[in-house]
């Protein structure tokens, strides 16, 4: 239902007329053009990765697993894919921990300067990713603590751009959770930690998991922040793809893309199960 409160006088037939059929034809055509622009490049990557020839032609020459096998046996590509996976998993763990802890304070407590603190945690998303990566690189080089050109350095950059998403989703889950349930547990003798672990945590776990998945996928696809922080030994998949597109343009890159697409689709389907997708409208993701 688009809007909850339909005027009482509106009959069923009237309501029925008000549906997607009532969207003007021009807008319907525009919408399908939008979908094509959105999805065509993704479809092409899948076709190119499964194509039997060197170049993708229309219609495709034939299907083969040639490039997929190439990807799975290539040290460079598989290495980059696994490195991105590792980076995204570490980032997810750190971001979810830090973000959940911060969200508990931000969502549950009234204190002076709370809005300021919330803005503080969102601020890395306002800064262009390339600038953030550069600032961190300069900082790591000048402080000389061994963070430049290291996995830890990359994780730090990725946590800064994923933590805001975790704080957002967990805060939303905490606001929706009725706090009196936790208070009931406390009044029945549970200590604060037990009450939180046994009552609150199971209720906000969907929001936490949605935040964790978002952190994972944003980190997995992160290009801008990684640009200055990666090295030839520490190359996440987006950077490896970029280097390939700049110099060689091999179909193995498309095969790597297929596995990345799979990961994104699975993550989004999981998110759809955890939270109401319709709530995503109006949320700013950057």
């Amino acid at each position, binding site marked *: 239902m*688009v809007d909850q409160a*339909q005027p009482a006088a*509106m009959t069923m037939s009237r309501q029925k007329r*008000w549906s*997607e059929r009532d969207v*003007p034809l*021009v*807008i*319907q055509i*525009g*919408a399908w053009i*939008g979908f094509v*622009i959105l*999805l*065509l*490049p*993704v479809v*092409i*990557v899948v076709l*190119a990765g499964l194509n039997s020839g060197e170049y993708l032609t*229309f219609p495709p020459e034939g299907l083969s697993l040639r490039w997929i096998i190439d990807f799975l046996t290539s040290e460079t590509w598989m290495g980059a894919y696994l490195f991105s996976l590792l980076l995204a998993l570490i980032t997810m763990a750190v971001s979810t921990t*830090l973000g959940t*802890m*911060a969200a508990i*304070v931000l969502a549950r*407590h*009234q204190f*002076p300067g709370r809005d300021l603190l919330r803005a503080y*945690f969102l*601020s*890395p998303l*306002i800064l262009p990713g*390339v*600038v953030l990566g*550069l*600032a*961190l690189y*300069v*900082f790591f080089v*000048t402080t000389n603590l061994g963070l430049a050109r290291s996995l830890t350095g990359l994780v*730090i950059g990725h946590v*800064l751009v994923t*933590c805001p998403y975790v704080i957002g989703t967990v805060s939303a889950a905490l606001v929706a959770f009725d706090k009196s349930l936790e*208070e009931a547990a406390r009044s029945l003798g549970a200590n604060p930690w037990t009450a939180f672990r046994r009552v609150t945590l199971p209720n906000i776990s969907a929001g936490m998991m949605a935040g964790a998945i978002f952190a994972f996928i944003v980190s997995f*696809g992160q*290009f*801008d922040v990684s*640009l200055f922080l990666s090295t030839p030994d520490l190359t996440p998949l987006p950077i490896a*793809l970029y280097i390939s*597109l700049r110099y060689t*343009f091999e179909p193995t890159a498309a095969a790597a893309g297929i596995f990345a*697409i799979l990961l*994104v689709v699975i993550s989004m389907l999981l998110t759809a199960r955890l939270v109401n*997708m319709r709530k*995503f*409208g*109006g*949320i*700013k993701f*950057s």
Partner: protein
Amino acid sequence: MTAALDTQPYTDSFGRRLRVFLGGSRVYWLVLPAFAFFLIFFVVPVLSLFLISIDRPVAGVVDPQWDFTAKNFVRFFTRATYYEAAIRSIGLASLVAVVTLAIGYPLAYMIAKTENPGRNTFYMILVLCAMQLDMVIRLYGLMVLMGDNGLINRTLIDAGWISDPLPLMYNFAGVVVGLVQFTLPFMVLSLIGIIRSIHPSLEEAARSLGATRNVAFWKIIFPLSMPGILAGSLLVFAISISSYVVPALMGGWKVVVMPIHIYQQIAEMGKWQFGAAIAVVLFATSVIAVVIYQRYAAITAGGRT
């Protein structure tokens, strides 16, 4: 401390507030790790970057000289290569915002008006998947499609319609197409919420008073979606102006924008101070866009809640 205390609004003395803050409610300590992390790895590095942008430029040296000068910024605003890149960046991002709005609005409108919950979720998943997929992968698809030897040109040449490949990418237009593809999901998500919140009875009323569907759309729905249009355009502008990978790959180094200059100055020439100065200009441009947006949003929101 009881949990109930935490919910009380603090109307009492500062001393009690402080006591509660420091020891009374231990829960406050939970925010400290994240706070410290952001302070050390975000605030300090960004401020240091601002600092070295006004430092004396020394090629190949990143450590501060503590010799402050406006040289880097003077260089940026007096050399055509650099200030033209800034103008090009702003023009490009503005154009992308307009094109993305034109394509994103119909899409958002259709998704917002889709009542079937299953179909609606399906559309949302498509948009979110497209958004979350690494841009470099999507650029691979676009390059296969639009290259000189790409699908479009090959098909047209084979069909005998053209003899030479059309210049679809490695130029300004290619960068616009790439950025529109990149930013479209952000625009759609900004618009869906606001379109959905416009009550259908408003359009019903207009229609029952004799307005055609077109008139009702342009006089009622479109003006009411203004807040989403502004927010989406701003988001698209900010993403486009700070993108490095799309101009680098789709422009083939012919469309030089600010992020490309930053990377070249630092990675290729070792001019850290000047690179930092361009980064500061890029950041300032985004901030100015946000300020203009807020001014404008305040005007258009006048008379509505």
